[in-house]
């Protein structure tokens, strides 16, 4: 159990550093880093404070405490994936609408220029 918790501590620390580095280099926008940092911090706290983890396990009725941490992490990441799917879908819709608008405006501009050239 100790080995697993140490591994999870290291994993969450790496995740926090990776996200902070990405934010610093503008690879991830701040608003999208919050959910990653929150998930990694939760993992870190639960893996460093076994008493807190065991209390959570008792509350959820789980006999093997490390399983709790995986369950909580799994739920958090599922919620994040859902949230990102919503964001990606909206971005795709916006992107398509924008591309169509650019094409239509270019077409209409060309028509106006042709009309002006002939006049």
């Amino acid at each position, binding site marked *: 159990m100790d080995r697993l918790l140490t591994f999870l501590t290291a994993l969450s620390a790496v995740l926090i550093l990776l996200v902070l580095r990405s934010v610093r280099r503008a690879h991830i926008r701040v608003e999208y880093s919050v959910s990653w940092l929150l998930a990694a911090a939760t993992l870190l706290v639960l893996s460093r404070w076994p008493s807190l983890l065991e209390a959570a396990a008792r509350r959820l009725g789980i006999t093997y405490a490390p399983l709790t941490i995986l369950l909580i992490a799994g739920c958090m990441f599922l919620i994040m994936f859902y949230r990102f799917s919503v964001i990606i879908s909206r971005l795709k819709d916006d992107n*398509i609408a924008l*591309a*169509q608008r*650019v*094409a*239509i405006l*270019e*077409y*209409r501009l060309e028509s106006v220029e042709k009309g002006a050239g002939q006049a």
Partner: protein
Amino acid sequence: MNPSLLIIVPAYNEEAAVGEVVRGIHRAMPGVRVLVIDDCSLDATIARAKAAGAGVLPLPHHLGLGGCVQAGYKLAYELGYDYVIRVDGDGQHDPEDIPRLFAELRDSGCEMVIGSRFADRNGVYTSLARSLGIRLFRLVLRPILGKAVHDPTSGFVGVNRRALQVFSKSFPLEYPEIEALVVLQRKRFRFEEIPCRMRPRTTGKSSITALKSVYYIFHVLMGVFVNVLKFEPRGQKPSRRS
């Protein structure tokens, strides 16, 4: 001359066929504007379309069939067209059928008219797998649409301005033909089918390959059910009289 009719031709890498498609449309419907919507082709589709006398709406990047067709609908709606007929750029639709399809669209008052390869027994060129898929879609669509549709995957369709208004706001992006019928049904719009000849594809290849067929069926069925269940805020349904 029909100033209120626009014929749109969505095309992606159709340099071998698009020129003849445009010329065929001009022969069948002299004086009618033809607009090829180029979905960012990598070949000479734009040049061939222009050389054949079509206007071209080039998209800045590849949007897929639904996004490509919707761009044409949006432009037609903004320019005030009353009717739009879509003819595919691969040459499978016979331009000689356009006058009949347009007459039905104008005279019937239906929001959509579909050129159907199954409304009679002539000109059927489709694979066994596709034929089975179409039978499945017919079964699913019958109770949803409240009437039988023989060729729900046909891309040879005409729409009037009421449908144009709806489609310029909401149009399925991938494999749009079947979902578009459900979108229309949600608005209580009507459609008709007329028998048309479909010619075998002579150039290029279909966007739906054998490997994609299962995904296609799953995607379309999902799209149909999502559209049936779609939340629509009050006051969004346009009147048929508008």
